[in-house]
């Protein structure tokens, strides 16, 4: 009797759910017919006819929408990977400073973390773009024999040029994420029992050697999962690129919707590209996690 009740309950929910989806799809088709758009993906092969300021691969405005979307995806990947590195380095430094012995350094890092975490990322990105980069003068702001210079055109570093949009996004995202990563690192270090510190000190190891060969390896298993979720957040937050005018996957989808009105199709494309990106990051971190676990077992 109980099993049959369960089946009936599920059947009821199934019918309820399907009928709601049916009503929504019915409304959608009526609306799409009314606006005369319909639902298809053939427009992807038509020329995009908009220019992109930044493209890692050759792109002209006569290329197709599909190619423009792919360029946007590459742009997203570029900013995500570079801020991933920068924020990890910065976050690790701040995390160590926060747990270190020098209380002044700890106080400064704590202040940094609260200020960054209690203000919205969008505001920080706008600050970096409009104040940090566009607020600079046209001429060189900081130049060391033409190797490194920052101006309102962006950053130039021995032949490598980063646009001001990209640099603002990179700075904003890295600094924002580094505050969260610092907390993850701190939590990881604090999760190692105090006895371990006392033990390596009594063995006569130096503070630095003890930290890197005793404490950090034990903290890593606690750090990696937190780090993974921060990286996923970073990838999602990179869509705020639109606020500073960097053409990432979301910004290009937005442009296409404004041009063609194909909101549903673009939304599906955006959804798929983010599911792909998430799979990429979480699988990559899973591999790193496995390497760390196996290496800590063999040691």
């Amino acid at each position: 009797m109980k099993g049959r009740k369960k089946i009936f309950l599920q059947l009821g929910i199934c019918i309820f759910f399907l009928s709601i989806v049916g009503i929504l799809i019915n409304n959608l088709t009526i609306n799409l017919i009314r606006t005369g758009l319909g639902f298809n993906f053939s427009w992807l092969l038509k020329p995009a006819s908009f220019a992109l300021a930044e493209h890692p691969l050759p792109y002209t405005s006569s290329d197709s929408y599909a190619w423009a979307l792919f360029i946007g995806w590459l742009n997203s990947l570029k900013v995500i990977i570079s801020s991933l590195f920068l924020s990890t380095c910065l976050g690790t430094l701040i995390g160590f400073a926060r747990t270190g012995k020098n209380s002044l350094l700890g106080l400064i890092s704590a202040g940094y973390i609260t200020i960054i975490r209690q203000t919205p990322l969008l505001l920080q990105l706008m600050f970096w773009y409009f104040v940090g980069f566009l607020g600079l003068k046209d001429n060189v702001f900081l130049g060391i024999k033409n190797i490194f210079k920052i101006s309102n055109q962006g950053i130039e570093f021995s032949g490598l040029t980063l646009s001001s949009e990209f640099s603002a996004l990179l700075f904003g995202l890295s600094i924002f994420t580094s505050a969260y990563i610092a907390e993850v690192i701190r939590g990881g270090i604090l999760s190692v029992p105090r006895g371990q510190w006392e033990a390596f000190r009594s063995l006569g190891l130096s503070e630095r050697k003890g930290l890197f060969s005793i404490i950090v390896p034990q903290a890593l298993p606690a750090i990696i999962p937190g780090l993974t979720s921060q990286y996923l957040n970073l990838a999602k937050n990179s869509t705020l690129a639109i606020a500073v005018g960097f053409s990432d996957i979301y910004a290009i989808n937005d442009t296409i919707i404004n041009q063609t009105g194909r909101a549903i199709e673009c939304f599906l494309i955006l959804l798929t590209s983010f599911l792909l990106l998430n799979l990429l990051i979480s699988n990559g971190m899973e591999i790193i996690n496995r390497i760390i676990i196996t290496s800590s077992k063999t040691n």
Partner: protein
Amino acid sequence: MTVSVIKLLIQKLRKTLFSNSSNTLISFILILIINLACFITFEWLLFNANWKVVTSNIPLFAFGSFPPNEQWRPAIWIISLITLSIVTLFGPRWKWLRKNLLIAWGSTIPLGLYLLYGGIGLSPISSRHIGGLTLTILLTACSSVLSLPLGIILALGRQSSLPLIQKLSSIYIDVIRAVPLIAVLFFGQLLIPLFLPVGIEVDRVWRAIFAFTLFVSAYIAEDIRGGLQSIPHTQIESANSLGLNQYQIIRFILIPQALRIALPALTNQSIGLFQNTSLMAILGLVELLGIGRSILANPEFIGQYIEVYVWLACVYWLVCTIMAILARHLEQRMTINQANF
């Protein structure tokens, strides 16, 4: 007395700041940098900054384009929220007051909706005119309140023994958590009208609240699931042995404990939500950041980015800090006193 305190302080400073040569060097460099930074900041704050852009636009930042002779309505709402926060934190510990505080907090949302939208006795005002800090608080409050029950249902659904419900809630939670917030908000602004029958329209503020609710509920569901999983299974067994039915177990045993365990995560979600309402500035609502953007577009205040952004950062920081302090207060009150056992 004072001499010994000073001696102790010097000893502590010596231990933490000047324990060895490299530490001393770092400390001196830091002190130098801090002094320099403070000097530059104060010089800018006092002499170079032009605060007219903020001071002449305070009503705009607070209420948006709300009609000037009706601005007392959002003002009353914000003042009542502030008063309630102060009473909660510093008020007297009378029992009847403490008991009614929860009701008072709960009634702030209907009060706010009534004051903002108007209705019986007040002239109705279109949501187009609601803006600034008022809109930011409205978005945060309504979305938090709506997403809590949805999150609880999703969390219970994911733990359910019925495979269909379990699959549906898992798919929903995982998909929403994989998608950036701005995509969900975009869905709310542009796609929801497409899914509605011809002729029915939902205004932009409510579409935004709906999108925030869809997004946050998936995160809340995961937090509550964490709480549910940490309840020992013996509790369910003992509830069963007492003869409670499935509904009673969920209502009286699981939900209260899971909520208490998940409370810190939940309050963090609502602080995050408060910050994330700024994303609506990109999608065309004039909440706090949106007002800032539109003021900066005004030729009179052109180029005064630093003043506006610093001011907005201070407002966001202040409200977030107040929310965090209230949250800690709530957590302290909700933890079970060990002495009772």
